[in-house]
């Protein structure tokens, strides 16, 4: 937002200098060397007439185009360059995961809180009994396991997956960023930390899901194939499954939903999960370091290309 206001100011300055150039050119066309023998009074009259026409145009321009609000809107509404944040593969993983997780929560929570009226309503009235709801839960589980395996493949086989996974690994800078944020919240810093591709918030989200998948899939399999395991392991699996299920649900509903739905920056929803893109503004605002990197890499590439072209040109000569 700040940037756009600055840009509006800049454009205003540009426009003014452009117009004054025009006036100068007009003046130059009026007072030509070959007109030297004309009477001074005649020339002066023409200049006045033509300049007053220019001035009227200038005035109109100023009133309509130079209003800062209009300029600001023009800049803000102008189609921006987009940056792809999530590729198709990653968006597919996210979509399949949240569909599975929603199914799992709906069919799982009633068994964590069976005495609530709504639990019985969901299991008995909506799904038509425990056998159906546990079957649907297992279908959701298959979806989640599939995503888990797919993701492991993605972070090892895919180049983007590998790069993103490496960037996801927590580093000391994240702890610094975290404290920086806290200082910013309490007013001890004037601005928040600048993030790269993944902020500590996103890393926390990712690793919470990672840990959750390990616990939920592991304990779920023990319960699914309970006949293969001793009863005490089943008990442990059930306890962990139920407790982690609740923790994960609350973390999603409170934390993830705050960050992607209810946060004033994105309310009512960030659509990046759907189209995968961020605008230049969003990049500058949320991932300034990554943005800077991209721009730097681009300009480097352009310079290299130009150098190559120049090289080729000088070789031809």
């Amino acid at each position: 937002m700040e940037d756009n206001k600055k840009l509006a100011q800049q454009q205003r300055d540009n426009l003014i200098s452009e117009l004054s150039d025009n006036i100068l050119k007009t003046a130059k066309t009026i007072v030509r060397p070959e007109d030297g023998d004309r009477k001074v009074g005649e020339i002066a009259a023409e200049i006045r007439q033509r300049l007053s026409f220019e001035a009227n145009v200038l005035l109109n321009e100023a009133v309509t185009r130079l209003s800062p609000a209009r300029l600001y809107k023009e800049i803000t509404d102008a189609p921006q360059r987009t940056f792809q944040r999530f590729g198709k593969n990653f968006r597919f993983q996210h979509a399949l995961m949240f569909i599975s997780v929603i199914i799992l929560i709906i069919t799982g929570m009633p068994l964590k809180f069976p005495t609530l009226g709504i639990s019985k309503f969901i299991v008995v009235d909506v799904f038509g009994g425990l056998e159906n709801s546990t079957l649907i839960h297992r279908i959701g589980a298959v979806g989640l396991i599939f995503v888990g395996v797919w993701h492991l493949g993605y972070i090892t086989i895919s180049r983007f997956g590998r790069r993103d996974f490496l960037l996801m690994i927590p580093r000391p800078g994240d702890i610094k960023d975290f404290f920086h944020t806290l200082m910013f919240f309490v007013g001890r810093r004037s601005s928040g930390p600048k993030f790269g591709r993944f902020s500590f918030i996103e890393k926390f989200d990712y690793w919470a899901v990672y840990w959750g998948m390990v616990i939920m899939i592991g304990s779920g399999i023990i319960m699914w194939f309970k006949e293969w395991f001793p009863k005490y392991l089943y008990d442990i699996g059930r306890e962990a499954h139920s407790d982690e299920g609740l923790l994960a649900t609350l973390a999603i509903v409170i934390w993830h939903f705050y960050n992607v739905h209810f946060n004033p920056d994105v309310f009512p929803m960030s659509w990046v999960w759907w189209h995968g893109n961020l605008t230049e503004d969003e990049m500058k605002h949320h991932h300034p370091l990554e943005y800077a990197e991209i721009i730097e890499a681009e300009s480097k590439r352009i310079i290299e290309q130009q150098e190559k072209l120049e090289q080729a040109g000088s070789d031809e000569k």
Partner: protein
Amino acid sequence: MRPWSMIVGLLAAGLLTGQAVALENCMICHGKKDHHKIEASGKRVSLYVDETTIEKSVHASRKCTDCHVDITEIPHQPAQKVNCRRCHYSGNPVGAPQGELYDQYEHSVHGLEVARGNPKAPVCQDCHGGHDVISHLIPESGFYRENIPRTCGTCHIDTYATYRESVHGMALDSGNVDAPVCTSCHGEHNIERPELPESKVSPIHVTETCSECHGPKGVVAKYGIKTDRTATFEESFHGVAQLMENMMVANCASCHGYHDIRAEDDPKSSIYPANIPKTCGKPDCHPEANANFASGKIHVDPTSEESGLLYYISRGFLVLTVSVLAGLFIYIIMDLVRRARAARGKR
């Protein structure tokens, strides 16, 4: 008194007053020990009534004809069956105890069988006695708590034999009056077939019925037996499934048996460690169950320190969940406060 004078008196009473014959008149014949009839089958049925029995019963003040209302003259036709509800109905004038019990009986498995015409089905007298109805608080009563299994056992003899060897029957035998008898589980007048949902021993209600003693308010606590059994069952998947109206799932009786419930350390018990795999492995339950599957405590309470690793996992998750959520909440609130302050500062 000599017989002839009795007969004269009896005739006089009958002819002159037309009133019902008095007890002592009946005893002219029924007081004789060899008074009997021969049934069509040739069976000899004694018709002797011991006067002292009636005097001891709660009906001591009643006359024979108060119950045998069809007898109005002597000699009489074979007496019809006595209907107890002639007096025991709501608002009866003689003050006979009444209540829902009679309706309950009529809807019970016993009452319905009688209504169907099953000659073996019990009527009031089969349990309460005919001439010898006495209070259930008198030890001689068939309904004195300790005598109930024997009373029911007169018809349900195999069940009685099984029950006597069970942990409940043995406890009762050893003089423990808290031990459950037939009626503790099945009810008294409202005994229903276990298949019916309203039955106290139906799969839906059996947990409640057992928890009357084994639940938190249970009487078993004074014998050092755990009363968390129903709570741990309810928290188990079996209990949850039962709450969700799945009746396939194991209830107390599925594992412990019902009439043959035995102590954990009894090798014949279905929950004796060596027998557990078989108990779990019933064809409808977990046919793949083996010794490994069945190893570990069954009634396990994650909130009790005795549960070991399970307790620490449960505690660990509690601490983790509370601290993570508190942290996230604080972060979100700080973020929102910062935004609100920034927005105010701008304006």
